[in-house]
């Protein structure tokens, strides 16, 4: 039942990001809801669960994207893995600042990955505009991470997941 809820959470997040927030843009920016979800998933669940959910959501986003198939799947899987590895270093993962810093860093990296994918085709970029867009997206995503925290912590830190947290604190994934 837990996996059903998690799968539903991933699907709803992807649909909201591509349909609802495609129309309702915050400061002209589409918030990256799935990126925020992957960060919370990486902090809360077991390695295989987090990687699987990140991969599944990345595939759905790649289906929705129509370009660079595999980019989002690879990025979000790597993000989930990176967050889990960070947990191994002993970072205080319940600290809100850690979540916000992860969100900011992941947003910048994601946009760099998309820009890098454009390097294979001859395009001209307005770099000043790109920097502005990325900075705005960082702020929007951090605000989203803050707003959804109570809900996601409640959903992801359920008793069956608490064992994952306990295991992580013991140094094993």
């Amino acid at each position, binding site marked *: 039942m837990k996996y059903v809820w998690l799968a539903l959470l991933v699907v709803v997040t992807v649909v909201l990001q591509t349909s609802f927030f495609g129309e309702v843009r915050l400061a002209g920016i589409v918030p990256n809801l799935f990126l925020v979800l992957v960060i919370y998933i990486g902090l809360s669940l077991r390695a295989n669960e987090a*990687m699987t959910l990140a991969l599944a959501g990345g595939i759905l986003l790649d289906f929705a*994207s129509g370009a660079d198939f595999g980019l989002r799947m690879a990025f979000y899987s790597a993000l989930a893995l990176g967050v889990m590895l960070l947990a191994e270093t002993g970072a205080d993962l319940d600290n809100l600042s850690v979540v916000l810093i992860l969100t900011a860093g992941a947003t910048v990296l994601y946009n760099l990955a998309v820009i890098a994918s454009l390097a294979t085709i001859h395009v001209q970029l307005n770099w000043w505009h790109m920097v502005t867009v990325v900075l705005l997206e960082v702020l929007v995503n951090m605000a989203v991470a803050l707003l959804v925290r109570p809900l996601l912590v409640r959903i992801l830190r359920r008793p069956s997941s608490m064992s994952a947290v306990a295991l992580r604190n013991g140094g094993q994934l």
Partner: protein
Amino acid sequence: MVRGRSRYQILGVIILGALLVFANSRGWLRPLKDVTGTVVAPVANVFGSAGHSTGNFFHLLFAVKQIAQDNTKLENQVAELRQRLSEDAEMRRENEELRTQYNLPDSAKRTLLPANVVSYQPDNIRQYMTINRGSKDGLKDGMAVISGGSLVGKLSDVTARSAKVFLVTDPNFKVSGIDQDSPNRAAGTVSGHLGSGLIMDKIAQSDGVKQGDTVITSGLGGELPKGILIGQVQGVYQQDNAVFQSAQLVSDVKFNRLEMVFVVTGS
């Protein structure tokens, strides 16, 4: 360090991802994309409609002054267009008389298929959207998509029941264009530029392009039908020692607020 069984599970996920990328490059994932699109589309439609209504509400709140200015500008444009319409009606009548006299075939008419916008791109760099029509409706890659008579983009990644529309503002978008109002009907390449909208470049220095000129598709190469409005020239950039000049274009299409578009299925 990731240990034991988790390491192999992570490796498994990576291998699965690589296999999926390979399968997609071969087109083997199309049936899966069809099924996913069919299942998700109704839900996406509901969220998209809700988003459109919400977006309209906030847009109205924050753009009242702009709406008033746009209203005045549009009223002036309507008056100007009415004048041009009556002149065009005369020219069309004369054109038909001449065609009849010289026994020439009728010019091709376009057939349009309406489609709803289901979703937008999931990031802020690429510019594309998904519509709820696909190959079952006769759509093919490369078909033009318009809204309000202006070019929105062209189709890509067409599945049975959905299709992606790469917008003219996408950095990968390129089409041949003609300045309808310049004396030499200046030709150039119109491409999307992140942050700069639309740029028409490779325009010969000798061609007179000025602000306010109308740019349409040229139809060269058969990629898109000829005569579809792309936008108006907003600024011209010339350098004395350059071979070409370029022009910044502005489109009338509100790309982030589209609810319905039309696919040009025949012309």
